[in-house]
């Protein structure tokens, strides 16, 4: 039955390079994945969730994510998000969502100015659909990061609002902040709670054989939410 394998769209920008890993991971977790080229103006019918993958869209020109937000497909993604559809941005996807104004803050060059590529510990600060329903509050997840510009920043008043409204989903474990992100923020939600961005790569942590399976908790939560959305819409 189609409901059992909900459709998830993974957007492919020129310069995306984690689209195949995201597609593979989501497929292994029970989704039917469509890779959607950035020039498309529509998402496939019955799309239950959208993932913006990692990479270096448009060569990171100007600022990371600044150009990709003008891709034709982004209007469809914005409409999908406005309709309550779950949208997950990973790494470059997170940068794009911030530049598009769908998520608060901005990702700046790492404080060290070095590219970081390693496993980091993050703690789950919010347990909710559609992204962390399979996690436990305070749970420590080990998920790799690999980025040069992951230093999340927002002005103090925005940070206060995010704390007050429970929208900081993931924080790096103390002592493990890989990029100097303000408050150790690794992942944030939009106001409605249906758009999330994170710097760690859950799609690279779905099999304990490769170091950690913790990323599967986030992606499987998204697959659950996509299934629910498609079923409700049917």
């Amino acid at each position, binding site marked *: 039955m189609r409901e059992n394998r909900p459709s998830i769209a993974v957007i492919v920008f020129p310069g995306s390079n984690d689209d195949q890993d995201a597609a593979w991971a989501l497929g292994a977790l029970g989704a039917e994945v469509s890779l959607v080229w950035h020039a498309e103006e529509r998402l496939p019918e019955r799309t239950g969730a959208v993932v913006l993958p990692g990479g270096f869209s448009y060569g990171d020109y100007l600022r990371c994510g600044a150009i990709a937000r003008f891709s034709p497909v982004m209007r469809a993604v914005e409409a999908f998000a406005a309709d309550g559809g779950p949208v997950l941005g990973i790494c470059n996807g997170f940068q794009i969502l911030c530049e598009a104004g769908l998520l608060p803050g901005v990702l700046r060059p*790492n*404080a060290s100015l070095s590219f970081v590529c390693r496993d980091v510990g993050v703690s789950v600060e919010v347990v909710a659909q559609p992204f962390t329903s399979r996690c436990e509050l305070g749970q420590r997840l080990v998920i790799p990061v690999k980025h040069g510009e992951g230093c999340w920043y927002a002005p103090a008043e925005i940070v206060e609002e995010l704390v007050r409204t429970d929208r900081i989903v993931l924080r790096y474990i103390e002592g493990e902040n890989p990029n100097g992100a303000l408050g150790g923020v690794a992942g944030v939600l939009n106001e409605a709670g249906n758009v999330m961005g994170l710097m760690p790569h859950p799609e690279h942590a779905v099999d304990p054989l490769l170091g950690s399976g913790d990323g599967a908790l986030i992606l499987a939560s998204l697959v659950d939410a996509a299934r629910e959305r498609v079923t409700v819409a049917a």
Partner: protein
Amino acid sequence: MKATVLVRPKEGILDPQGDAVQESLRHLGFAVGDARVGRIVDLELEADDPAAARAEVERMCEQLLANTLIESYEIEIVP
């Protein structure tokens, strides 16, 4: 008409690139207190009215050339 846009990190915003430049200049023996790194965008415009050109470049800055959460910009119009 031409325009030059100068985009720089806002005051108080950590600028690791500027810090690295400052440190390197000190290694070379220059007495540098603080260094901040921004970028310049040179534009050729079709507008003939400087005020209209400035207004248009301002919209470009707000929509694309600068991220005003962290960056400020200055516009110079060259008729």
